């Protein structure tokens, strides 16, 4: 049996933080993705081009570069604004920077996923909703969104799995997630391989469990659709 020298709780604490970062950034990404998809499908040329720049730039630059930019740059920006307003020195936490960046990045990917999903919803259903006198927001909430989920789900699942793995990057900006903890434990025990391998397995557990969950959601939202 592998001896972890009592570092297991530290790693598991880090794993919890990893999951927190992943879930929070997913929520931001969903929000941004819906806004982005709405902008891309809207009639406004301005909204369309802003969304186009957003998705192109984000998908063209490495996540690590964006994260360090937000972390170090954000620190500077906040304090320059703070200086003028007479605040004390503010520390931007790696947690906030990490969650915001990952949310921002995957918002761009989800924009495309949601756009595809919304476009796959049949026009007739949306028209029927309007004919019943529902407001645009009600149509979105009761018709477009539930119907879209089924179409967007495969892309969404993919993005979530990639997002979960991307959270490993927060260790680079100093957040004590499970990758960071594995580094500490590995250094102290001179068994870095053991601890990084353990973390790799934990990532497989996270993706494995979410796979089961996503399959359940897929079944739920496919009720009423005949399988081929």
């Amino acid at each position, binding site marked *: 049996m592998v001896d972890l020298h009592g570092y297991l709780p530290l790693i598991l604490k880090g794993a919890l933080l990893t999951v927190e970062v992943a879930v929070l950034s997913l929520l931001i990404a969903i929000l941004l993705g819906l806004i982005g998809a709405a902008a891309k499908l809207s009639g406004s040329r301005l909204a369309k081009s802003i969304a186009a720049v957003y998705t192109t730039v984000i998908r063209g630059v490495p996540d690590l570069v964006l994260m360090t930019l937000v972390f170090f740059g954000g620190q500077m920006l906040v304090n320059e604004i703070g200086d003028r307003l007479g605040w004390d020195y503010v520390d931007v936490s790696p947690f906030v920077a990490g969650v915001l960046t990952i949310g921002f990045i995957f918002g761009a990917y989800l924009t495309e996923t949601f756009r595809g999903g919304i476009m796959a919803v049949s026009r007739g259903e949306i028209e029927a909703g309007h004919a019943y006198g529902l407001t645009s927001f009600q149509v979105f909430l009761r018709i477009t969104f539930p119907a879209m989920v089924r179409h967007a789900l495969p892309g969404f699942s993919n993005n979530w799995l990639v997002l979960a793995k991307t959270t490993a990057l927060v260790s680079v900006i100093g957040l004590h997630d499970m990758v960071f903890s594995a580094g500490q434990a590995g250094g102290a025990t*001179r068994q870095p391989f053991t601890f990084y391998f353990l973390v790799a397995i934990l990532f497989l557990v996270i993706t494995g469990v979410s796979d089961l969950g996503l399959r359940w959601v897929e079944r739920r939202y496919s009720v009423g659709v005949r399988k081929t």
Partner: protein
Amino acid sequence: MDFSVIIENIPLYVEGLWVTVQLVVLSLLLGLVLAVPLALVATSRRRFVAFGPRAYIYFFRGTPLLVQMFMIYHGAGQFDLLKESVLWVVFKEAYWCALLAFSLNTAAYTAEMLRGAIEQTSFGEVEAARAYGMSRATQYRRIILPSAFRRTLPSYGNEVIFMLHGSALAGVITIVDLFGAAKIVNSRYFVPFESFIAAGLFYLGMTFLIVWVFKIAETRWLAHVRR
């Protein structure tokens, strides 16, 4: 914002760019060489034969590249046997560790794409090859693999972009690639915006270049299925 510092340090960025290009091109080549046999074995109908490559693919696709790189770069020192062998020449250098991690990673992704493409080869093509009396090896060499490569092309373009972006991780383990160069400029002059935006622009430019190259490649090799 003041980009004059960046202009002064352009040589450093160009040096970093060169290292990034090296890492990406070499790991893609090595990854492709590994991916073909992996994909072939993974499509085997004998389950216990396919199990090995499938487990490899599952592990490398399911875990973060950063962790894989750390396992190799930091983890190698844990094994005395490795430390005393000639292989240590490779494992003590950050550059080779990064290259190894990237190659193993992209091999898994590429193998998975190829596996899908091989399995989806239309049976008519295989049947025609058989009717011509081709041996199994010839079938693979002349029919199945070329056709699978073509159909993998669009998703392989994405993989190349992922590899370019993933290669920025090399900057984390002291390698002066494009990201490493930006880190140096930032720590020397404390210009986080300018230094990382400059690196980002280089990456963005390269991403566009890759997209453009693959567009041309697709018109050349996928003309028959393009809409």
